[in-house]
C-alpha cells in the first residue's frame, strides 16, 4: 500500500488513475472469516461481491482464490463511481442480501482509503438486521451469532440473531494466501455481472464534495532550554 497520494489539481478528489488498487485489508479479513465459517460447515456458500468498474473483477478473483464459491460484480463506472459512497453501496448490498437470501453479510469494518466506517452499519439499518461491528471473534451458535467486539473500553460480547451484518476488525483472523491449486480452481468459478439499476438502486449521491486539500505541511519544531521556557511558549500560542 505504499502509494503516494496526490490531490487532483482541481481539488475535486485524489488521483486514482494508474494507482494500483487491491482488496481492502479489512475486507480480506472478512473473506477469510467467511471461508473459515464455510470450512467449519456453519454456512453453505460464500458469495464475494464488489461494486465498481471492470478492474474490480480482479479483486473478486482473489476472493474466489481464497475460497469463495462465486462472485457478483455490480458494475459502477464513470461519474457514478466517483460519487459512490457508503450509502449507495449499502443499498446495493441490502438489495443483494435479500435477493440471495443471505444469512450473513460480512464486510471489512472500513476501507483504508476513505475510512468511512459506515457501509456495514447502513446495510444493517436498511435491512433492519442486527449488526455485530468491529468483530474480533465470531462464533455461530444455532440461529444466533456471538460476536466479541473491539470497543474503546476493551471488548464487548454480544449475541445477535441471524440474519445479521458483521464487520471485521483487525484481530478477527489472519487472511490466508491463495494456494496455487485454488487460484486455478477460481478460474472456473462464476462471476455474475449486474448493474445497480437491476437491483432497483438509485446511485444519486446525497453528499457533495466541496473541496479536497492535502493536510497542512508539518512545520519545524522549536527547541527550548528549560521547562519554564516551554510553559511560556505554550501559554503564548494559546495551547494552555
Amino acid at each position: 500500500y505504499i502509494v503516494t497520494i496526490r490531490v487532483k489539481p482541481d481539488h475535486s478528489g485524489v488521483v486514482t488513475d494508474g494507482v494500483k488498487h487491491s482488496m481492502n485489508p479489512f475486507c480480506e479479513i472478512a473473506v477469510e472469516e467467511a471461508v473459515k465459517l464455510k470450512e467449519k460447515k456453519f454456512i453453505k456458500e460464500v458469495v464475494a461481491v464488489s461494486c465498481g468498474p471492470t478492474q474490480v473483477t480482479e479483486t473478486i478473483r482473489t476472493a474466489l482464490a481464497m475460497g469463495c464459491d462465486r462472485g457478483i460484480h455490480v458494475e459502477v463506472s464513470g461519474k457514478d463511481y466517483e460519487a459512490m459512497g457508503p450509502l449507495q453501496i449499502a443499498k446495493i448490498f441490502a438489495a443483494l442480501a435479500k435477493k440471495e437470501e443471505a444469512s450473513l453479510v460480512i464486510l471489512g469494518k472500513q476501507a483504508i482509503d476513505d475510512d468511512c466506517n459506515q457501509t456495514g452499519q447502513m446495510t444493517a439499518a436498511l435491512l433492519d438486521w442486527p449488526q455485530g461491528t468491529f468483530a474480533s471473534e465470531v462464533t455461530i451458535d444455532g440461529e444466533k451469532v456471538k460476536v466479541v467486539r473491539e470497543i474503546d473500553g476493551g471488548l464487548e460480547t454480544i449475541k445477535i440473531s441471524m440474519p445479521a451484518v458483521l464487520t471485521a476488525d483487525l484481530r478477527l483472523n489472519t487472511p490466508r494466501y491463495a494456494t496455487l491449486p485454488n487460484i486455478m480452481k477460481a478460474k472456473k468459478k462464476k462471476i455474475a455481472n449486474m448493474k445497480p439499476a437491476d437491483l432497483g438502486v438509485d446511485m444519486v449521491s446525497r453528499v457533495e464534495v466541496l473541496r479536497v486539500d492535502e493536510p497542512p505541511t508539518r512545520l519545524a519544531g522549536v527547541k527550548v532550554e528549560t521547562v519554564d521556557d516551554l510553559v511560556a511558549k505554550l501559554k503564548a500560542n494559546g495551547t494552555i
Partner: protein
Amino acid sequence: MDSDGGKGGIPSHILRRHCKRSRLSKKLFTSEDHFSTVLKNRFKFDTNLQIAAHGLSDEQKEFQKMAFDFAAHEMSPHMAEWDEKEIFPVETMRKAAQLGFGGIYVQPEVGGSGLSRLDTSVIFEALSTGCVSTTAYISIHNMCNWMIDTFGNTEQREKFCPELCTMDKFASYCLTEPGSGSDAASLLTTAKLEGDHYILNGSKAFISGGGDTDVYIVMCRTGGKGPKGISCVVVEKDTPGLSFGKKEKKVGWNSQPTRAVILEDCHVPVTNRLGQEGQGFNIAMRGLNGGRINIASCSLGAAHACVQLARDHLLVRKQFGEALSNNQFLQFKLAEMATKLVASRLLLREAAVALQESRSDAVSLCSMAKLFVTDECFNICNQALQMHGGYGYLKDYAVQQFVRDIRVHQILEGTNEVMRMIIARSLLSESG
C-alpha cells in the same frame, strides 16, 4: 494467529490508529505481531510489478501477486537473519509448500501443482525478491521432485513425490564431484550391481541441502566411461554408508547448507534407480534445463528488487544540495539497469515457453537465458550496490545480500562458460 500461511499488509500508520483504542488492544499488539515485523524490514516492489506482469495471463498474474505477497511477508523480513545465522528455514519453506510451491511443475496426481515452466519462472522470480538463497533451494528441490515424477516408475513416484510436494521431505541434486564439475560426464562415483542392490562408492561436492535433506538424487557410474555409463539413483537419508562432509562457509546462499556427500559401500536398492541404466546423464541434463530457467528466474527477482532499492535510494539521498535522482549519470545508469532487466525477463520467459513446448531450440535457449540473465542481473545488482555508496557495503542494507547471493548463479547448474559451449555446439551443428 493462524498456523497456516497468513499475511498482514496493513500499513503501520493505519495499524497504530486501530490500536489507539484501548490499553487492552495495545497489549494484544505485541512486537511479535507479524504485522509489525513485516513493516520493519519491508520491500514492496509494486512499481516494477506492473512491468513484470506484462504479457501474463490473469491466472499468472494471480500466482505472481500471491508469490510477491508471500515473499514480502514471509521471507523478506527474515532474509538477513537467515543469511547471518545460516538458518535453513524449514518452517517457511513448508508454508510455501502448503501453497503449492513444493512441486510447481510436478503432476497433480502425485501432489504437485501441474503448472507450466513459464508459471514456475514467474513464481520463482517473485519469491526471489524475498530471499534469493531460499528460493534457489526451493527451485533445486522442485527440480529433483520433477526428475522423480518424470523418469520414475509408478512406485517411485508414489513413494517420493507426495512428501516432496508437501516438503515433509527435502531433496538434493548430486552430480558434481571434487574431480568433475564442468566435465560432469567424467564423474567417478561407482555403483556396482550386487544382487538387488547397487553398492555406491565415491563423493559428491557442493551439494545444496546436503546433510539436512532426506532424498538424494545421485548420478553414478554403473557402466563404462562417458555419459552413457551413468545412471541415476535415489538415495535416502540414514542409508548406511551415506555420510556428509563439513558444512561449507560460503559468500552467499547461506540459508541453505552446502556439504560434500560421501558414499562408502552405500547399499541402494535397484528399485531406487530412476529410468534405465545408462540413462542417468540424460536425466541429469534434462533436469538442469529447467533448473537453469529457475536459477535465472532467481537472478531476475534479485535484480528486480535491486532496481527498486536503487531507485528509492536515489530519490532520498542528497549530495551537492540535491537528490541523487537529479544526477544525469545516475539517471542513465538506472535506465540501463531497467532496460537490461526487461530484456533479461523477456529472454527468460521465451526460453521457459520453448522448454514447456519441447521446441527444438529449447536447450540452446535455456542456456542462452541462463548465461545472459545471470550475468546481466549480477551487473544490475552490483550497480545498485554502487549507487548506495558506502551504505551499499553495510549488511544493514539488503542490496549487498542480493549481490552475494546471486553471484553463484553464474557458476552453478553449468557455468556460464559451459553455457557458451552448449550454444556454440548447437550453432555449429546446424550448419552442414
